[in-house]
């Protein structure tokens, strides 16, 4: 994909983001009542005072105007202030990105390696016992609710066996590298297991498809080892179609692995989101949602770029 095409794709993403911001703005105003409702029953607040407050916050302006002002603030990086803490929304989110990225990177690396290995093995052994075992495991991974898997592991590994800490980023007081790693094991494993199930299925299907192609027969015929045929000729072709779904899963992590983080009290963006739910902290909620949507759109473009780099046929 040339630079011009990339620029074009990025420009085309802008109206999409605009549409998303419109949907999200409508969602905020879907809420019954408004921010001034808490004053409504207060006898000390006169209607005149109420009108003054509404005017000060621009709440008396027509909705389209409010949307325009909100959008302009969003674009200039002014995402407002958290209702709960009074701190800038951007700072609240940036602070939580660290743990989220840490958990996400580890989990996604494990998921990628595992699903490539399992996908290749299952495709090579198609229809045999190993393939059936892999499809059983992926079926379980697709069906098991993450929150329940997390609870069961917490019960078994922390409560019963005492092998791992049950929740949090680190122990209170001491935080060595080993301690942080121990805290990371369970959430990363749960997240990796749930994510790799879908990936493995995609990669297996892609590998089976690739192994049927003529160039694989040619590669074998010219005397290449099985290993070289599988890893150098079949695998790249199997990965190309899976990249879109992998990129989407990666992007959705930016807005936090909401459930995994909630179960393991992992202080990432997902936990920030759930905490903000309790305080109805709309500026934070909208900030996370906008960031997450932008990440998904960028990931889509990135996936197309990578696919074009891997597959010359997609470059036209």
């Amino acid at each position, binding site marked *: 994909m040339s630079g011009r095409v990339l620029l074009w794709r990025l420009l085309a993403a802008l109206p999409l983001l605009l549409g*998303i911001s419109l949907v999200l703005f409508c*969602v905020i105003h879907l809420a019954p009542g408004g921010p001034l409702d808490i004053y409504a029953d207060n006898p000390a607040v006169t209607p005149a005072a109420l009108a003054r407050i509404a005017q000060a916050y621009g709440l008396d302006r027509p909705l389209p105007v409010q949307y325009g002002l909100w959008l302009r603030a969003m674009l200039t990086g002014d995402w407002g202030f958290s209702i709960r803490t009074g701190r800038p929304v951007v700072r609240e989110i940036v602070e939580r990105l660290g743990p989220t990225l840490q958990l996400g990177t580890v989990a996604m690396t494990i998921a990628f390696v595992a699903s490539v290995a399992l996908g290749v093995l299952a495709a090579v052994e198609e229809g045999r016992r190993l393939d059936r075992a892999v499809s059983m495991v992926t079926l379980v991974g697709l069906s098991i*609710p993450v929150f329940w898997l997390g609870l069961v592991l917490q019960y078994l590994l922390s409560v019963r066996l005492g092998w791992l800490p049950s929740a949090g980023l680190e122990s209170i007081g001491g935080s060595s590298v080993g301690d942080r790693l121990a805290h990371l094991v369970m959430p990363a494993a749960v997240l990796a297991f749930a994510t790799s199930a879908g990936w493995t299925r995609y990669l297996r299907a892609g590998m089976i498809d690739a192994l049927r192609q003529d160039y694989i027969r040619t590669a074998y015929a010219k005397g290449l080892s099985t290993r070289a045929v599988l890893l150098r000729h079949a695998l790249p072709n199997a990965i190309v179609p899976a990249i879109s779904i992998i990129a989407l899963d990666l992007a959705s992590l930016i807005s936090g692995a909401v459930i995994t983080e909630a179960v393991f009290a992992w202080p990432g963006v997902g936990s920030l989101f759930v905490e903000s739910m309790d305080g109805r902290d709309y500026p934070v909620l909208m900030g996370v949602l906008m960031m997450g949507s932008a990440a998904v759109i960028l990931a889509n473009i990135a996936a197309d770029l990578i696919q074009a780099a891997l597959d010359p046929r997609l470059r036209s």
Partner: protein
Amino acid sequence: MTSRRRTSLRVGVGVLGAMLAAAVVGPLISPYAFDEQSLALIGLPRAPSLAHWLGTDELGRDELTRLMAGGRISLSIGLAGAAVATGFGTFVGALAGYAGGVVDWALMRLTDVMLSIPALPLVLVVAGMIRPTPALLVVLIAGLIWTPSARIVRAQVRSLKAADFVTAARALGVGPVAIVVRHILPNAAGAIAVSATIAVGGAILLESALSFLGFGVQPPIPSWGSLLNKSEPWLVSAPWLSVPPGTLIFVTILAVNLIGDGLRRRTAR
């Protein structure tokens, strides 16, 4: 392959059928009501006994009855959510695919927007604002998961629009609505069935995740997700409260996925 396809379909349908039967019949034949409190047992969860096969919760309510009543809510939200989502998705997809042009463009951009917003956070925000009843939850969940079926139906309609039998029907003077409903959609039935099955699993999972986080079905109505949510503080001292609801969610979604796999293999040939 044939036997495996049938096996996964059969096992899936059997398990899901058993769940439905237990949810429908169970609360009728149980000696307890789902919100009936035994005054003698209030205070702490009690372990399973002959009178209460799966024990009682801290409010002295029979856990087995609550599980079966919760199954009614979870399964109906799952099935209804998937039905509404598939119906709406089919409508949007058929409209976009058959009308083409500006209509198609606008509807597909709408699905792009819906697909780009992170699903769980969005539904959490809305559910948190309106504290939904089960019926509203169905609408909310369907509003999130209709996009895949819309895309599938649109693709099918576009490819079948130019088929000879459609041209023949049009030449006979059949109207556009009748062409889509009577001639095109029946040919897409397999693909629609597969996406409907996936939607059932997705809807049950979304409901349970929402309820688990405390923003779905509200007490005193039980659902499997909310039972799991309420059992979390008792994970260590009363595991009989948290193991069954999670297992039921897992097994139900497993059954739905088995049906989906079976249907997909059948339509793939």
